């Protein structure tokens, strides 16, 4: 009987043959945390030891509120920087890098066949590279810092077969919104998701990251794409070759197989206040909004910025809409700058903000007032997430957000004939 990716990698690392449902204890390769590191340090100090077991495994990225917007956030960052020095954490990325999931990825810290745990729910992102990556809480990270061990239940796996080809102006974001809308926010609870089929193979790494990132929004423990030449080339360019690819077997047992044909997929929009409240853009077209956000760990990479710039070039954003552009990292910002995209955003009336999480979690840089509506490329639209509990968040692809930003109302990007 064949094994899924998750069964195989957890079995390999636990040193035993496992099947879905088994509990294993593994030692992760990377342990990610961000601004919440200060709270984790606080828990770690209660454990009665002074040294992190293996500081080489820690990856700490300041991204949630950068630069610090208040004294208490500043204090938080200060505590983290002191800890990083004290414990000699090499993989520390201060406020001048970007969002943790992008930064960890672009430094090649989530190679195929590795195990990454992170104190962030969107740690699922690294499945795009064939890593087993899973989100946990703060106590758990503090405990793993000390013991270098984590217990995990081997998940069942849902296979999602992507057939056909994406039509123009339809993107990875539309694929995952469609899947979540059809299947529900708890469809993959406690389970892994493997994306496969020709539609999956055709996606860029950045697009695969969108799917894996948002797999968290259907409850998935982890997500996975079969690593291919795109992945190998990416790591080769970084000079990283010491990894062992782990793949699922042809005859692996899946709890369910879902097929989606991309040929006729429309742009999708998730409506307030749940990510699975998804409609085709045609059903929400014309809805006015106040703020647009293009960025976040879901859609702040070069390919996202390129599509947005292509639509915004030579146009002005609607005078009643505030448009925020937040590249996912300094590296992505630099690429966008070199390609002239930042100039386009600037001239069209967008506000370009430094890489980071921005207002996605309602902490700073464009929070919403009561009654306001946002159209965002982020991954969550929960009530109150971007500010007031009486505000409303719609989620869509960078193309849909950019097209709508010009119109001042939600617009089908396929109508942007260039």
């Amino acid at each position: 009987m064949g094994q899924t990716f998750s069964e195989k990698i957890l079995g390999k690392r636990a040193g035993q043959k496992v099947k879905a449902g088994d509990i294993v204890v593994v030692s992760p390769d990377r342990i990610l945390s961000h601004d919440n590191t200060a709270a984790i340090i606080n828990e770690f100090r209660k454990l009665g030891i002074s040294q992190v077991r293996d500081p080489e495994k820690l990856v700490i990225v300041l991204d949630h509120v950068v630069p610090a917007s208040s004294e208490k956030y500043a204090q938080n960052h200060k505590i983290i920087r002191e800890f990083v020095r004290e414990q000699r954490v090499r993989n520390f990325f201060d406020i001048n890098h970007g969002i943790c999931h992008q930064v960890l990825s672009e430094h090649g810290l989530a190679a195929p066949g590795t195990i990454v745990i992170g104190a962030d729910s969107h740690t699922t992102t690294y499945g795009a590279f064939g890593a087993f990556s899973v989100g946990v809480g703060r106590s758990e990270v503090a405990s793993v810092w000390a013991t270098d061990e984590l217990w995990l239940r081997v998940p069942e796996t849902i296979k999602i077969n992507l057939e056909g080809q994406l039509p123009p102006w339809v993107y990875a974001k539309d694929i995952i919104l469609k899947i979540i809308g059809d299947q529900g926010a708890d469809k993959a609870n406690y389970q892994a998701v493997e994306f496969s089929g020709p539609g999956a193979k055709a996606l860029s790494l950045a697009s695969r990251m969108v799917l894996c990132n948002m797999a968290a929004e259907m409850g998935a423990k982890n997500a996975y794409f079969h690593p291919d030449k795109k992945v190998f080339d990416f790591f080769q360019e970084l000079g990283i070759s010491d990894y062992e690819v782990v793949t699922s077997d042809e005859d692996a047992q899946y709890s369910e197989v879902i097929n989606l044909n991309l040929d006729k997929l429309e742009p999708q929009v998730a409506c307030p206040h749940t990510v699975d409240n998804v409609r085709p853009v045609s059903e929400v077209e014309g809805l006015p909004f106040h703020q647009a956000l293009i960025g976040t760990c879901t859609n702040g990479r070069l390919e996202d910025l390129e599509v947005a710039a292509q639509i915004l070039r030579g146009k002005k954003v609607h005078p009643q809409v505030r448009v925020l552009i937040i590249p996912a990292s300094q590296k992505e910002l630099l690429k966008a700058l070199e390609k002239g995209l930042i100039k386009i955003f600037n001239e069209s009336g967008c506000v370009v903000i430094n890489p980071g999480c921005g207002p996605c979690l309602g902490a700073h840089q464009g929070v919403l007032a009561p009654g306001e509506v946002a159209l965002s490329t982020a991954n969550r639209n929960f009530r109150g997430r971007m500010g007031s509990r009486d505000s409303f968040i719609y989620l869509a692809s960078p193309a849909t957000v950019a097209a709508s930003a010009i119109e001042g109302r939600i617009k089908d990007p396929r109508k942007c004939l260039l």
Partner: protein
Amino acid sequence: MKGKVWKYGDNVNTDVIFPGKYTYSPLTPEEMAQHALEDIDPEFARQVRPGDIIVAGRNFGCGSSREQAAICLKAAGVQAIIARSFARIFFRNAINQGLPVFVQEEVVAGLNQGDEVDLELEKGELVAGGKRWLLPPLPLMVLKIIKAGGLIPYTRQKLADSREDEKKRT
């Protein structure tokens, strides 16, 4: 222990349990409790009493990995959460905070907002309105963590024990 039922629907997410705007403020558990469920039920934090239980639908605690979602409910005095299902990170976080969580469909169907209940955690038994339900037993690993008062005290003890063993050997 006796308490009252707070009942909610499906997909109660971590942003409504503990809003993101407070997540990176250094708050004590008691301060966190004052914001518990603020964006879905502003009455909760004002009226919850120690021993109360939360009864909810599917996917309770979906969304962010923020552990404050579990901490604030525990600090508010919530004795246990019984739901049709839990989001996995919340499930782990609750256990890691020593807050028992159970998946039991019949309890969810049978209890209403404000019902008086008597929950005996040790026996895994819940009594309300003359009815008695059994809660599914928790796995051994989980029980150990809850009994220790959460993952941090559990790990602390484990580390201390292994240092002790080391000493004995040398």
